[in-house]
């Protein structure tokens, strides 16, 4: 009797593993997307040159008053251009403070780019050598972070903001407010 059950064991294990794989297949999940290690932590402290104003960009000071969106972008990055319309929507429709971090880019080109497409950013930090990006755990731009009014990172999205992501970030912001 025990032996008979024992022979069923591999088959049973196989079915269980199959079910687990099938479950992982149907749920909405992208294995290549990694959760941010910075979630629920304070924004990194850094200082950089600002693209828009003659003053330095001081990291924690910029994030203490209101919910802020942080967007890593560059003019050489095509998906950044694709998501630009949504970043702008955050600034105009939602009246959100949006901070840009210009990743390994040409400042001259960026200014032209923003003139042509419109500027949703209240301030832009220049990240010449990608050091700010490393501090934020960024591995592929565009990346967008939601920071609450206390300067705590609440959400990170890797890749361009699409209609679906735009809605999701809106929901997160509504929850924070």
């Amino acid at each position, binding site marked *: 009797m025990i032996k008979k059950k024992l022979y069923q064991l591999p088959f049973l294990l196989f079915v269980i593993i199959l079910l687990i794989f099938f479950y992982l297949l149907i749920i909405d999940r992208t294995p290549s997307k990694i959760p941010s*290690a910075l979630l629920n932590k304070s924004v990194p402290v850094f200082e950089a040159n600002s693209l828009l104003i003659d003053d330095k960009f001081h990291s924690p000071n910029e994030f203490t008053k209101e919910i802020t969106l942080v967007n890593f972008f560059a003019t050489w990055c095509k998906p950044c251009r694709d998501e630009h319309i949504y970043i702008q929507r955050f600034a105009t429709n939602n009246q959100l403070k949006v901070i840009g971090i210009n990743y390994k880019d040409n400042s001259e080109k960026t200014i032209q780019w923003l003139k042509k497409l419109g500027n949703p950013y209240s301030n832009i930090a220049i990240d010449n*050598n990608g050091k700010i990006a490393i*501090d934020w755990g960024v591995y592929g731009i565009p990346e967008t972070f939601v920071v609450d009014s206390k300067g705590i990172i609440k959400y990170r999205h890797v890749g361009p903001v699409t209609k679906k992501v735009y809605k999701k970030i809106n929901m997160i912001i509504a929850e924070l407010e």
Partner: protein
Amino acid sequence: MITKKNLIKVLFICLLQFLINNSNAVEPDEILANKKQEMNARNISKNIRCMVCQNQSIDESDAPLAKDLRILIRKQIQEGKTDKEIYVFLTDRYGDFILLKPPLKLNTFALWFLPLVFVLIGFFIIYYHHKKSNKI
């Protein structure tokens, strides 16, 4: 024509390729003058995942981020940081995922010990099977 001799030669070269593990992406300008420090940097780099390619270490990856991290690790070594401090610096920013070898934690417990459990189950099955065949 593929003769036996040629085939052996080809196989020998293939085998040699396996033994000489020279697939690093470190560029000449990155290499530190201090050999000991450079060795240390290489060892750390081999354990750090390239977040862009994900199945390569930053030692092997040509991705710009991998290069940035290689330079950063070398800079921190020169500043006198310990290996542990460098690993903590990286995992603070990128999480445990950046380590190619997952650390033994509560949430990775199954990952580390389930293979052992399966081996034990295997032995168990073989043992019972053997017992049964002996009876016949």
